[in-house]
């Protein structure tokens, strides 16, 4: 089933879906494994697994550090892919790859898509690949049935949103504010009118990410967005309290 349809179906049962994020290899694949278990068992709907890259320009300090520590720890793309295969086999929710374009480019674009299909990955989030630069990427995405998750930002004009939507599948990732991942977002009227513009621009479900850190935020997003994305917060949690803390946290979000 297509990612978009899966999301639509899930939304029949839940007011808002939860998508979580983690960086593969940080602090280790075995901790990742446990974190994912806790997430899935506590009701997370979608998980984006970030394959680390040495130059993650769209990420804030926390995720940046996770990327770099993971690489410093010796993680390879191959290990990430193997791990992903294991995970998708174990759990029946959609898994996405989040990574920077160079990882895909170096692997070989088509080979990477093939591999993702083989693993059962449903979508890619590539924050440094705007649609104009992704011609072959989008061709291959269509060919292999992988959803290219594209991004709206508060700085996107209506026209730009239209343009982006045209290449997007699955859902749209609405960046909640300017800046990078990791800082708290203050929800204001501006945010509401931004979300209204997003809704108008696309038929795809809307995920909201950047700075979503607790139940209050998730509650605020109900009715405005379809998916709440928790990124940095769970990494912080694992750093501070270990993988076991993730389950209760996730359970309390909704």
């Amino acid at each position, binding site marked *: 089933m297509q990612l978009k349809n899966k999301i639509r179906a899930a939304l029949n049962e839940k007011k808002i879906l939860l998508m979580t994020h983690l960086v593969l290899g940080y602090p280790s694949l075995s901790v990742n494994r446990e974190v994912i278990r806790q997430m899935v068992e506590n009701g997370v709907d979608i998980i984006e697994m970030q394959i680390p890259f040495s130059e993650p*320009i769209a990420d804030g300090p926390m995720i940046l550090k996770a990327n770099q520590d993971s690489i410093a720890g010796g993680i390879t*793309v191959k290990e990430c892919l193997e791990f992903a295969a294991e995970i998708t086999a174990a759990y029946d929710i959609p898994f996405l790859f989040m990574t920077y374009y160079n*990882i895909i*480019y*170096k692997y070989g674009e088509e080979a990477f898509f093939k591999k993702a299909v083989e693993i059962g990955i449903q979508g890619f989030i590539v924050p440094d690949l705007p649609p104009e630069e992704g011609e072959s990427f989008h061709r291959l995405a269509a060919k292999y049935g992988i959803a290219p998750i*594209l*991004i709206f930002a508060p700085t996107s004009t209506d026209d730009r949103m239209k343009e982006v939507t045209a290449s997007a599948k699955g859902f749209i990732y609405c960046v909640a504010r300017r*800046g990078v991942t990791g800082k708290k977002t203050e929800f204001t009227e501006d945010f509401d009118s931004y979300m209204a513009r997003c809704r108008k621009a696309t038929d795809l479900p809307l995920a909201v990410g950047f700075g979503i850190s607790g139940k209050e935020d998730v509650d605020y997003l109900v009715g405005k967005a379809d998916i709440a994305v928790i990124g940095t917060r769970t990494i912080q949690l694992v750093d501070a309290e270990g993988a076991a803390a993730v389950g209760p946290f996730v359970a309390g979000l909704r």
Partner: protein
Amino acid sequence: MTDKKGYYGQWGGAFIPEVLHETFVQLNAAYNDARADSAFWKEYIALMGSYSCRPTPLTHVENLSRHFNGAQIFVKREDLNHTGAHKANNVMGQGLLVRRMGKKRVIAETGAGQHGVATATMAARFGFECTIYMGEEDVMRQRPNVFWMEKLGATVVPVTSGARTLKDAMNEAFRDWVTSMDDTHYVIGTVCGPHPFPEMVAWFQSIIGSEARKQITEVFGKLPSRVYACVGGGSNAMGVFQGFLDDPDVELIGVEAGGKGLETGRHATRLTGDDASAGVAQGYKTMFLQDDDGQMRDTHSVAAGLDYIGVSPILTDLWEKGRVRFATATDDEVMNALDLTMKKEGIIPALESAHAFVQAYKEAGELTPDDAIIINMSGRGDKDIFTIAHAFGDPSWKEFIREKGAEYAAEK
């Protein structure tokens, strides 16, 4: 030479986070406007003439020419720019553009600190706020430049992520920009990064080449046989090469940092040798020093300004097309060329620039006194005393620093 906007052959592009899309739309518009407006270029030329000292001279180095018993060697003196390097051309140009866009703040990355000092200078002159990102490692190594940036009114932010050097500072500048783009312009320091930066920086730096072409024609009566420039990001090289791109008889040679030698892996050589491969990072596509997974590698050069993973997409295209030849100079060769240049001509190239001298010296003897070659001296070395005196292992210098250090330690 672009098929697709912002591409040079297969290289270039604008791999930017969506949140910057609109910023780039505006930047492209402002840049294209400025480029179409001949008054803008006139203003730029006037500014460089009255604030820096353009045109910079083309010096005939007669002693060295005799020494190598070959071509007449000419040196394009970018070291005589205000702030001591060609970096001034780029920052002052971008400064004019920032004023045109009505922005009030600039940010920049810096490695050795040269571009940071230049940007802080430009910001002081234009009355912009200024934040400079600099790897923590570099902040410690290059304290003199940090001191000047701060004195010029800039805030210097040490970057503690990654290798804590240039590329990380660049990433960090992007991170600032995705938050602050409404009133802030990111002044990239070289012909790299997402479109329109390579094209724009190359445009501002083209002032070097157009001057040099005019000057060599006047003093030598004909075009040079070869033009040498060091290549970090590639801005000084692109600057001088543009004066001669359409002259097929002028050979253009870019010289990369060979560090401890190609075979050691401790270098920053992208287009000579086989260590680099195509990739996409920091917003553009070029040949990067990266591993098989696409992770960027640590690089090394005695010259901080050449110590970078990528290279201008425009140069990569010219390399691929065979228009620019690339060569490599090791740290040791650089120190020797520096020494010879100082002793023979009384000029002190920056460590970066000395790379170009190395290759020119290797080849000068292949030509005759009826031929001319131009070396682009991108900057002056006296700003690098800590690095140069250290690299020469000068004992009196070390003693001086020991004593000064002890004096300051006693104050605590």
